[in-house]
């Protein structure tokens, strides 16, 4: 495949971001537009370099990784726990989790609430206060493209669907485990 690098002016930036585990979504307008327009070229280029570019129809690009580093594994577990706890928090309030997750600005109060509800679990990941949670989760989510800042608060972005999909697949996993046990 012939690649015209002049059509990929954001190559360096896109590559750097994706390599660091960042998820490029529609809010990263310039990068998103270029990836969207030149998806085939980027996909070919990155796969030649040993990385697989993945696109999700809900509006984000990322590099597929087979094995996470130990640290990233811990961070991913923290993200998962926070998102699942938020889902439960919104459901308990009578809201629709899939809508509330994206519509609500997540502030200190919400973080305190979920920490209080799931303290036992957060404790296992060495998170003991809402400030810890903000530092460990919110700031890292911003760095990986899972959230965007809104003043002191943050709002979740479509890449968290990766965790929601995993959550939807829980049933299937449980059933498989149960049948394996039998």
């Amino acid at each position, binding site marked *: 495949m012939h690649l015209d690098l002049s059509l990929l002016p954001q190559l*360096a930036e896109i*590559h750097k971001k994706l*390599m*660091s*585990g960042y*998820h490029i979504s529609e809010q990263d307008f310039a990068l998103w537009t270029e990836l969207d327009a030149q998806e085939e070229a980027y996909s070919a280029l990155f796969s030649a*370099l*040993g*990385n697989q570019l993945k696109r999700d129809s809900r509006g984000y690009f*990322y*590099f597929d*990784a*087979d*094995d*996470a*580093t130990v640290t*990233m*594994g811990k961070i*991913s*577990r923290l*993200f*998962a*726990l926070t998102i*699942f*706890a938020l*889902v*439960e928090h919104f*459901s308990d309030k*009578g*809201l*629709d*989790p*899939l*809508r509330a997750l994206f*519509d609500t600005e997540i502030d200190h109060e919400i973080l305190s609430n979920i920490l209080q509800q*799931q303290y*036992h*679990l957060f404790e*296992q*990941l060495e998170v003991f206060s809402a400030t810890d949670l903000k530092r460990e989760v919110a700031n890292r989510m911003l760095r*990986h493209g899972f959230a965007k800042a809104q003043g002191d608060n943050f709002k979740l972005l479509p890449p968290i669907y*990766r*965790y*929601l999909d*995993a*959550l*939807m*697949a*829980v*049933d299937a*996993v449980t059933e498989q485990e149960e049948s394996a046990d039998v």
Partner: protein
Amino acid sequence: MISARKLIRCLDEFWPVLETLALRSQHHTFSFQDVQSLVQRYAAQQTSEQCFKDVQRLLQLEILIPMAKSSQLELNRAVLEFLQFLTQELTLGTVGDIESRILELNRLREKMTQAAAQKDTTELRRFVRLMDERVREVVKHFRKNELAIKHLVEQAKADDRQMSLAKRYASVMDAFDEYIEPVLQMIDINGPFQKSIEALEHALSDQISFIEDTGFMGNDKEPLIQLRTRLLEMNQIGRESLIRSTDQLMPLREELRKNTLVSRNASELLARLRKQGLEPLLDGLVPKFSSDLQKFSLGSANQITSYMAELTEYEDERYQLPDAIDQTPSSNIRVPDVQDVLKSARSTAKKTDLSRWLADSYPQLPVDELLFLYQELSRAPALQLEHATDTTELEIHGYRLKLHPFINSGADRK
């Protein structure tokens, strides 16, 4: 007898009031005063006496009807339906509305076949007209229900976003379960609807062929063809209308299903995590988004270049060996085998002190080797050793050892 023209004029005159009342009447009834204040609102220049007279007129024309055993009023049902038809604020009908007309069509088909067999043209015409009426009604129901569903969907979407989906979509879900599903079953290829339509189409086609073949009842051919066309059209309209309605309802149902599933799974998973701990469950579940391989692979040209640049300046660090401390060359000493020493100890060691015996027997051995042998022998059950209460001092190769030596207990007893 109320004059129809007067009624129409009155509807026109009080349209805004009646439109509001039609909306309200879905939820609750209203009093005379309510209507009077509504009239006042839309005609602010009128005096309250005029407004009172206007409401009286609505009552006289039976547009408003007093409710039984109550001073409350309600809209005349016929007027309400007419208003809803005009504003397309239709309420969803039931599958029964359509089903009953299909049964009626079946009954009329049999009557029509009998009339045709008896060559009774008057009866034939009457049944064809009745069937035509029923087919039109079915089409009207399909259209009305489609509009009603559209209205329900719009209302559900426009409602307060703070309210949960389950509450907002309740009417939509009811529409799906109580209308779409049963109608889909009804118009299924093996369902009663399809069978009735096929049977009626055959009966009509047979009748048309008979007329064409014999020329008898030639004037009735046209209405029969019309009815057959309308019947096929009804089938088509019914299917298309259902598809459109389902298309509108399905995304909402899916949205609700996903939300319910996510909520349920989240609380189940969190409960399991609390019981079983985080790691085994979450590890297999969470997505991975950055790996060692990616971080350190030499994938990009930049990385390869910088790596090569680093290689050209490569210089290995000299390994610094530690300074020699012990200057004396070590003599090549043969270390005796433990088993041999043990054997020798058993045969000759009538001495009480094992450490002294070792030091005397193997004076050339370094201290560490000697201590190793001492340790090995002290554990050997064959020697029957035990600790002495007094300490012994030994000096071997310049090292002074002070210990509670092992003594041969067997020897002692002797």
